[in-house]
């Protein structure tokens, strides 16, 4: 008996892991077939996916693109595949896609909404990607709110210029008066001057300049707006204007000034307590009962105002959530630095509160964008309204899935982009202390 214990002195060479543990097979074993129960689930899931795709893919791709009516589509399907089931008739989209996108906007002016959309992206770039795009581009962003209505509605160029001049007038009066008296008086006088300019003086200004120098482009009536363009127009205005209004309302709701506070609370609770469709009905029909006959209060402008107010109320509550989530120390820290209210909001509170609220804000954006389809109920021809108008054409009566699939695809692209952008923004602003 020798008590020789054997201890290996040299390392064995590394071996490749078993083929069943790495690569595709390993991944499948680990993730799909790691036990009998999971294996069954995997097989059932695969069958479900195959079942759905085997129906949907032939429907999408074995389809008719060129026909003048649903019946013609059906004839082509019978001739090609021997059956009309399981094949899409995309010919309706081929026939009407311009109408679905632009509504009844005059076709020789399609370049105007397209230019507006491109300029929108240019105007948004310095805001959305402030780290990559020069801040000089912000001048496009500032001009855009005046340029866009001019492009979309046309008419004289002096209208948007007069609207922009209102801000110049207000700013001029503000600086003059605040030098003479106090900042608060200056603010009040400036706002009053702008309002007087917009309501009273600007129409004379536009009239006079238009008679001297009639520069303008062909005007387009609001009734001709429609299709996905209308959804984007309403969505962009509601989103763009509701964020600042929402911030102001959220701050107002937390204000110590009693009147401001209760005005904001009252507004938010009233708007949130009423369905959007009710507000749209009021805008489209009941408002006329209060206005004199013959008053031309543009229908799209009415809808824009209602949708903006609606989303502003929701936005205010989302941002209030962000404000409430900030630790008290942040407010006290701002105070101890000697910052006044607006400085504290701008430098310390808002950047953090808005960052916390990003998912909620973008959710509200997506929600209001999809809510634009509700305008079809008050007789505006957005994509949904156009879909039913197209079905009223005897050539296309009876077609559903193709139209709704197309509309869904349009909305998905926009909403998914917004969602991805918000995730990018969250990653970018991640400062790493939870």
């Amino acid at each position: 008996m020798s008590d020789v214990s054997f201890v290996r002195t040299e390392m064995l060479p590394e071996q490749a892991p078993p083929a069943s543990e790495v690569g595709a097979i390993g991944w499948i074993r680990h993730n799909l077939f790691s036990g009998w129960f999971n294996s069954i689930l995997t097989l059932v899931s695969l069958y479900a996916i195959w079942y759905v795709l085997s129906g949907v893919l032939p429907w999408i791709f074995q389809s008719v693109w060129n026909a003048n009516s649903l019946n013609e589509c059906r004839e082509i399907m019978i001739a090609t595949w021997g059956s009309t089931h399981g094949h899409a008739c995309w010919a309706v989209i081929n026939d009407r896609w311009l109408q679905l996108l632009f509504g009844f906007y005059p076709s020789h002016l399609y370049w105007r909404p397209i230019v507006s959309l491109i300029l929108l992206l240019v105007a948004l770039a310095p805001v959305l990607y402030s780290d990559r795009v020069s801040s000089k581009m912000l001048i496009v962003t500032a001009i855009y709110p005046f340029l866009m209505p001019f492009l979309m509605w046309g008419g004289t160029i002096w209208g948007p210029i007069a609207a922009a001049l209102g801000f110049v007038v207000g700013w001029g009066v503000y600086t003059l008066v605040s030098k003479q008296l106090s900042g608060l008086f200056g603010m009040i006088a400036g706002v009053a001057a702008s309002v007087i300019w917009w309501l009273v003086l600007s129409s004379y200004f536009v009239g006079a300049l238009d008679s001297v120098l009639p520069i303008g482009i062909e005007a387009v009536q609001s009734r001709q707006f429609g299709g996905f363009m209308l959804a984007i127009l309403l969505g962009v205005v509601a989103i763009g204007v509701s964020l600042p209004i929402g911030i102001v309302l959220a701050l107002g709701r937390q204000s110590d000034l009693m009147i401001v506070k209760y005005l904001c609370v009252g507004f938010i609770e009233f708007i949130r307590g009423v369905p959007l469709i009710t507000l749209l009905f009021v805008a489209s029909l009941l408002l006329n009962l209060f206005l004199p006959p013959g008053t031309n209060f543009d229908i799209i402008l009415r809808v824009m105002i209602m949708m903006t107010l609606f989303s502003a109320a929701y936005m205010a509550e989302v941002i209030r959530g962000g404000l409430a989530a900030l630790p008290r120390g942040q407010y006290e820290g701002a105070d101890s630095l000697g910052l006044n209210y607006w400085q504290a909001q701008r430098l310390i509170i808002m950047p953090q509160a808005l960052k916390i609220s990003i998912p909620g804000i973008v959710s509200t954006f997506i929600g209001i964008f999809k809510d634009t389809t509700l305008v079809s109920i008050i007789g505006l021809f957005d994509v949904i309204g156009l879909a039913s108008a197209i079905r009223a054409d005897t050539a296309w009566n009876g077609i559903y899935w193709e139209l709704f699939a197309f509309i869904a695809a349009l909305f998905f692209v926009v909403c998914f982009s917004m969602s991805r952008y918000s995730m990018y923004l969250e990653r970018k602003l991640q400062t790493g202390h939870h």
Partner: protein
Amino acid sequence: MKKSVILGVATVAGLAAAAATAGTVDDVKARGKLNCGVSSGLAGFSLPDANGEWQGFDVAVCRAVAAAVLGDSSAVEFVPTTGKTRFTALASGEIDMLARNTTWTFSRDVDLKFEFAGVNYYDGQGFMVPKALGVSSAKELDGATVCIQTGTTTELNLADFFRANNISYEPVPIETNAEAQQQYLAGACDVYTTDASGLAATRATFENPGDHVLLPEIISKEPLGPLVRHGDHEWGDVVRWTLNALVSAEELGVTSANIDELSAGTDNPEVNRLLGTEGTLGEMLGLNADWAASAIKAGGNYGEVFAKNIGEETPIGLARGLNAQWTDGGLLYSPPFR
């Protein structure tokens, strides 16, 4: 544009007094456009085509009125309305007239304070069933499931009919005609009931129209016509007599083809009065002497409008039936132009 809107709101008080006294005829003339409420999409009756031009049987009434008042059949602003918004839109002044296959009923005329200017289509509620069901009369429908649009006169008529015949049914409420087609074809209901014109139009779009039959019973009267606000009788007269002019034109043999020739003067005094070469009918309405001639030129006489939009040559394929002239056994009977 923004500014003019705000200005409009700001001057509400000043305008209100002046505007309240002016009638709709003057409003339309001053505006240069007729605001006409139509359906946002109903096959054959009103729909925007691929170019955004409005077409249809109800649309033709709007165009005729615009031609009579303004001399231009394209001076119409078509305001699409839904079943829910149509009456409010008219009452609030958003539209000058409503031509949206609306049934003339007592309560709409009296209680809702509207004035029906006449009937441009005599309809009635019918039933459509699949042939496979083997039913030949609506009275055999005991226990059937019925697709029915909610909030319409058809819903009430259906209940009346089944109660009167002492048989039962199970309603499947649906919102729009499009939804009804889907439900019916998917077999969610045995029977689809709505206006007979709508049933015919719907069946025409089915893949196999022959597999479905319309039952012979017509269980209600649905006189469809244009309407205006109660109280403005001058405007009501304009719409009523424009419609009558289209009907009379067919009766008198005035068509869009021969109207120019007849406008030069004929031996028939009624044609002359209608076309304004004799008498002062236009002046009495506050319109031009050739008001009716313009209205007829807009889309032809009643028969031509019918044939072009919903007649037997179209996919809708409706026969004249009750909508034939009284001389042909129908109900169309225009009071004389005198």
